[in-house]
């Protein structure tokens, strides 16, 4: 492989890494912007997971409710998948989802390059499977 070609490839991969870092930075900044918009209400005081029931959904501001209801329906999703349903920009949904994570209503898990968001109902599934196994 020629030297210019190798340089070209390594610069492409560096650019890709820079883009990923910028994306992550962007995501964090969106969360900070959202938090500053909604002040103290956004942070769960004890930092404990809270329950995303319908009354909580009703109490959320409109923009977050749309994201939260969509995630409830999808069970687990990336910001891209939520954006597809809400017809809003991915970056916007990413910001809202991360805010819901900070509020303790939603959990986030990174798998490879993708971040998956979900409402935690795991404990329920475990309980249910135990009962089914018995019956």
């Amino acid at each position, binding site marked *: 492989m020629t030297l210019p070609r190798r340089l070209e490839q390594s610069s492409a991969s560096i650019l890709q890494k820079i883009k990923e870092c910028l994306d992550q930075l962007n995501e964090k900044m969106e969360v900070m912007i959202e938090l500053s918009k909604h002040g103290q209400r956004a942070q769960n005081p004890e930092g404990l997971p809270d329950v*995303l*029931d319908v*009354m909580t959904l009703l109490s959320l501001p409109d923009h977050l409710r749309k994201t939260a*209801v969509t995630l409830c329906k999808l*069970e687990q999703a990336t910001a891209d998948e939520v954006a597809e349903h809400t017809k809003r920009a991915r970056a916007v949904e990413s910001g809202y989802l991360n805010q819901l994570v900070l509020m303790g209503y939603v959990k986030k898990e990174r798998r490879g390059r993708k971040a998956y968001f979900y409402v935690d109902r795991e404990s329920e599934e475990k309980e249910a499977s135990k009962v089914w196994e018995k019956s």
Partner: protein
Amino acid sequence: MGKIIAIHSYKGGTGKTLLSINLAALYANKGKNVCLLDLDFRAPSLQAIFKVRDVEYWVNDYLNGVCEIKKVLKDLSQTHVKRGRFLIGLANPSTEAIREMTAKDRKWEMKALGRLLSLKTSLLNDMQLDYVIFDTSPGLQYSSINAIVSSDVALVVSGTDISDIKGTQRMIDELYDLFEKKTGLIMNKVLTEVLSSKNERADLVKQLMNSYNLPLIEMIPCFCDILKTGGATIFATENPEHPFIKTLDRVATSIENL
């Protein structure tokens, strides 16, 4: 893809259960595969109407995570409709079960919402049903809001008295608008004199249009012969030519256009 329809009202006694049963039977008699679920855990009624014996699992059990939805469903296609599939899921009418359901905490309600939402997969996708109808509790409470959030279409039933109209109006503003749900309004038990007089009918429609931010999909007259049967007759099957069923047929068409 099938549809989940929630039938709800602000006050009790508006005719939700009668409408739910007959709409479900009407769809089945058209050859559709239908499931009717009693989600009124405070005042379960389908058990008394369908008189199903030996119920092993209730909708309560499904929401408690004790069983799959299939175990709850009873197939009444042979006895209650002429065509199609007619499945029902009953709410447990025992006092103990009612008390238990009213004492559930927020975490349980969140899980119940998850279970209701997953009915879209289990009933519409896996069992290939065309319509699932939720008969809900009146007013603003967990079980009915969970049902509304999990449905594709919500029908709000209201009577014509002022307390019902005002309450329904507030409920729509504070609940339905927030969830951006496809919703239609049904006025039930409207006096026939009002409906037969052009002016009075126009006045009522105008009043409703001013009160509600919702499409009025039907005004159903008060039928004395329906009241006389005490809810024991499924008109959609036993008397399909009845004017009540003709109006429900229009409701079925309107649902598709919401």
